[in-house]
């Protein structure tokens, strides 16, 4: 077995036992990247020099007898909407193509503290707006399971980097499914933690009330280990939740006897492909055999989730992205006539079509005369959806659903129809709207050998229950550590 095929947990053990050095691991990661990157296109920026220096530093600390955190010395990729001091952070946009952040995101500090080695910055849909990674203005990312297919998005680069073995773990972000849907498309594990449990300080905002950073891995344990590094309270993010963050890795337990799992009937009907439905229902059957109680439940407001999501996320995006005006940083039009022209040209030339579409949509729903009908109503509906979930969690411990209506589709298949693309988010957005944790892991393959992912949704702060249920299924199904290419 090659190093690149190993899980982070395995690499961690090897490092601890001095069977391998971090420099060797890092070199192996870049060797694998050199081998597959041309096909996957996972990265926008590779930071090999810094990675090797960081790895050497970890090695010398270990050699000096220091006890290091579990993932110290393990390579990790980071989505390119997370600020890295002095390292280009583009959001896959022409707008920030040459932007060097003057500071590190809180999660970067946490990765540093835990001794992880960042290999580079991964591709995404521009400003995380999209579901296929095709909206990147800088890079084309392909699904390692089939290079003609999309990776999903927006964290398509992160998912691809893990699926292709360029790294074992990756940091992504999820606003409406941006970790979970590409994890599903690429046959890996991804978790969107509870809103407020991972600091957003330094995550370039798309929709502040929905954005959440989270981990990717090829198995549940790796995902838990990286989640342990990322999660925690941060004074610099006022939406960060002050509470205890016990180790999820230490709490892993595959015994799920007596656990109650709900299947919301609204997630298995029209619009969801039969192959996907079948695979998820088969997973439900596995849970039954493992001793869980599986019951049908109802989330009646699910059908409103998509419009609510596109109203709220676009409204916030229109304001969050207003700072990209060509004045302080980022793209500035070469020629302009006065201030307004500077704004109009810089923004028209710097932002791609999907970003412009969302900005216009968001500006519209916040405009006086429309605010009450759209934004205010969507906020009220958001509260109703939260109540819907709260009611469901009085009955069950977890909810099991498909992650996306289909498996990864062909590159270019949906780019001409934005609405069709938006429909692909139907299974994931309500989790963000309700601020809940969601876990996605592979549960089979379709006839074209493309991975199918299932989604487990938990109550607020229910990450441990999610990961335990995930681990139980992973062990039973053997669908773990799938490396493509």
């Amino acid at each position, binding site marked *: 077995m090659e190093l690149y095929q190993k899980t982070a947990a395995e690499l961690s053990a090897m490092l601890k036992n001095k069977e391998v050095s971090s420099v060797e691991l890092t070199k192996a990661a870049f060797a694998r990247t050199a081998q597959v990157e041309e096909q996957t296109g996972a990265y926008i920026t590779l930071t090999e020099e810094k990675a090797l220096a960081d790895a050497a530093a970890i090695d010398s600390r270990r050699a000096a007898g220091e006890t290091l955190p579990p993932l110290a010395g393990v390579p990790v990729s980071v989505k390119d909407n*997370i*600020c890295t001091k002095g390292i280009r952070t583009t959001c896959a946009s022409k707008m920030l193509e040459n932007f060097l*952040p003057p500071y590190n995101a809180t999660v970067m500090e946490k990765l540093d503290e835990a001794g992880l080695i960042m290999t580079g910055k991964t591709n995404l849909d521009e400003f995380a707006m999209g579901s296929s990674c095709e909206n990147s203005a800088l890079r084309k990312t392909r699904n390692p399971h089939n290079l003609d297919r999309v990776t999903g998005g927006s964290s398509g680069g992160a998912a691809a980097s893990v699926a292709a073995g360029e790294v074992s773990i990756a940091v992504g972000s999820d606003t409406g499914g941006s970790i979970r849907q590409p994890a599903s498309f690429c046959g890996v594990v991804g978790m969107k933690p509870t809103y407020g449990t991972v600091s957003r*300080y330094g995550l*370039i905002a798309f929709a502040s009330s929905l954005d959440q950073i989270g981990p990717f891995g090829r198995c549940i344990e790796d995902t838990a280990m990286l989640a342990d590094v990322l999660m925690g309270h941060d*004074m610099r*993010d006022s939406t960060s939740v002050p509470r205890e963050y016990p180790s999820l890795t230490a709490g892993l337990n595959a015994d799920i006897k007596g656990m109650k799992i709900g299947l919301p009937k609204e997630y298995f009907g029209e619009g969801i492909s039969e192959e996907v439905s079948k695979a998820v229902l088969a997973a439900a059957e596995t849970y039954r055999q493992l001793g869980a109680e599986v019951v049908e439940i109802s989330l009646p407001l699910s059908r409103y989730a998509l419009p609510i999501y596109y109203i709220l996320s676009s409204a916030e995006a229109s304001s969050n992205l207003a*700072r990209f005006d060509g004045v302080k940083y980022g793209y500035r039009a070469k020629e302009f006539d006065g201030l307004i022209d500077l704004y109009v040209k810089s923004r028209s030339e710097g932002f791609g079509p999907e970003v412009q579409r969302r900005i216009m949509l968001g500006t519209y729903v916040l405009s006086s005369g429309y605010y009450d009908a759209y934004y205010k109503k969507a906020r009220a509906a958001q509260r109703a959806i939260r109540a819907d979930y709260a009611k469901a969690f009085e009955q069950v411990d977890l909810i099991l659903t498909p992650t996306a209506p289909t498996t990864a589709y062909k590159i270019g298949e949906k780019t001409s129809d934005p609405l069709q693309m938006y429909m692909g988010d139907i299974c994931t957005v309500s989790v963000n709207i309700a601020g809940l944790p969601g876990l996605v892991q592979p549960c089979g393959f379709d006839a074209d050998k493309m991975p199918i992912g299932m989604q487990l949704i938990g109550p607020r702060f229910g990450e441990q229950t999610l990961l335990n249920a995930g681990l139980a299924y992973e062990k039973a199904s053997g669908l773990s550590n799938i490396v493509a290419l």
Partner: protein
Amino acid sequence: MRYEPVIGLEVHAELSTKSKIFCSCSTAFGAEINTHVCPVCTGQPGALPVLNKQVVHYAAKMGVATHCHINQLCKSDRKNYFYPDLPKAYQISQFDVPICENGYVDFEVDGQPKRVRFERIHFEEDAGKLLHDEGEGTVVDFNRCGVPLIEMVTRPDIHSSAEAKEFLETIKTTLSYLQICDCRMEEGSIRCDVNVSVRPEGTEELGTRVEMKNINSFSAAVRAIDYEVNRQIEVLEDGGKIIQETRRWDDSKVKNLVMRTKEDAQDYRYFPDPDLVAVEIDDEWMRQIESEIPELPQSRYARYIKEIGLQPKEARIISDAYDKACLLDEGVSMGRVDSRSIANWILSDISKYLNDKGLELKDTKLTAGKLVDMIELIEKNTISGNAGKKVLVQLFETDDSVDAIVDKLGLKQVSDEGAIQKLVDEVLAANPKSVADYKGGKKNVIGFLVGQCMKASKGKGNPKMINQCLNKTLSQM
């Protein structure tokens, strides 16, 4: 026809917190361009605001002092617009739920009581500054960006520029009493926008209002209001109509010009800032805020007239300055010297010293205790009033006690009867002509003789005792 002006003000005051409203950068004025900045206040991608609780505290203090209802759950909203001095392209402010609502202040205009109601007071962040003379193009200085402000919006209760000026002075005094604003007008720590309309005297319906911006001093506010009232009356007299618009005041030209009309009013697309969770002022915090409100100027003003017997003008000078009023009240509370004396010292020598040096009391070392010590020595004839002035200068500038200063400068008066008698005898012996004049009925030579005695004592003789001793000795001669 006679017209009545109807005026409402929007006053912005910079709060004197040490750090900015959403980051830990300093709020100090006058630093080199873009040195008090960080990722948060320059709107770097990904940076997040965290509300400075001191801002909530200060804003609520102003609300309590002006009889407002305090909304104890403070939410923040985004006001979206593009301008180069606004790095996020939105200002974090408060929209539908301001921290303070429905208050008022009372004050006097030409001796008549006047009340102006507040619609609201809310907190928000200041923008940066555009500098057009720093070399090529325009430079944006973000030092001021994120300095906390409160915006105070009045009801249209003001009916003349004189009332507006007194209102603004009252706000300024209140802010300084609460110690929540530096009130440095030249640094722009208080600024105001003015809304003006006019209506036929005796009618109730409000006329069309015009907003005026760019008013940078209280005296400019008076000029701007007078100008705009006259302009509107002229338009109406000529049969025209007032157009709802925003006009820019040009104080150097003493006129205003249209900035924008109602049609191109901006849509700020306010919505709750998702980066900031609501901050709750719990009841304990409320009690803390309430306990910090000192007796306010209007009340002290009345008290100084009634209890100390000051003239209204004198009472105003002291009650307008929080530190002077505190000095007076603290001195009076010691109960050791005449209250009027303390007031006199504050009105005369202390005010003169501060004015001459351009200082405030807090910049000096003077304390109420030492001021009272000094006055007490004068009352006991230990030092002369003139010596007191010399002691005062030392009290401003050193940490020495009054006794130590008196000793150091050798200011203790000679009040020993034997010593004074000797002094008087010597002076009388040296001035036989004056003695003769006195005996001849020219009683006013006594002044000359007192002067000679003071001179001989090098200023240390107790003038009162010298006077008495001279009279006694001369009458016995």
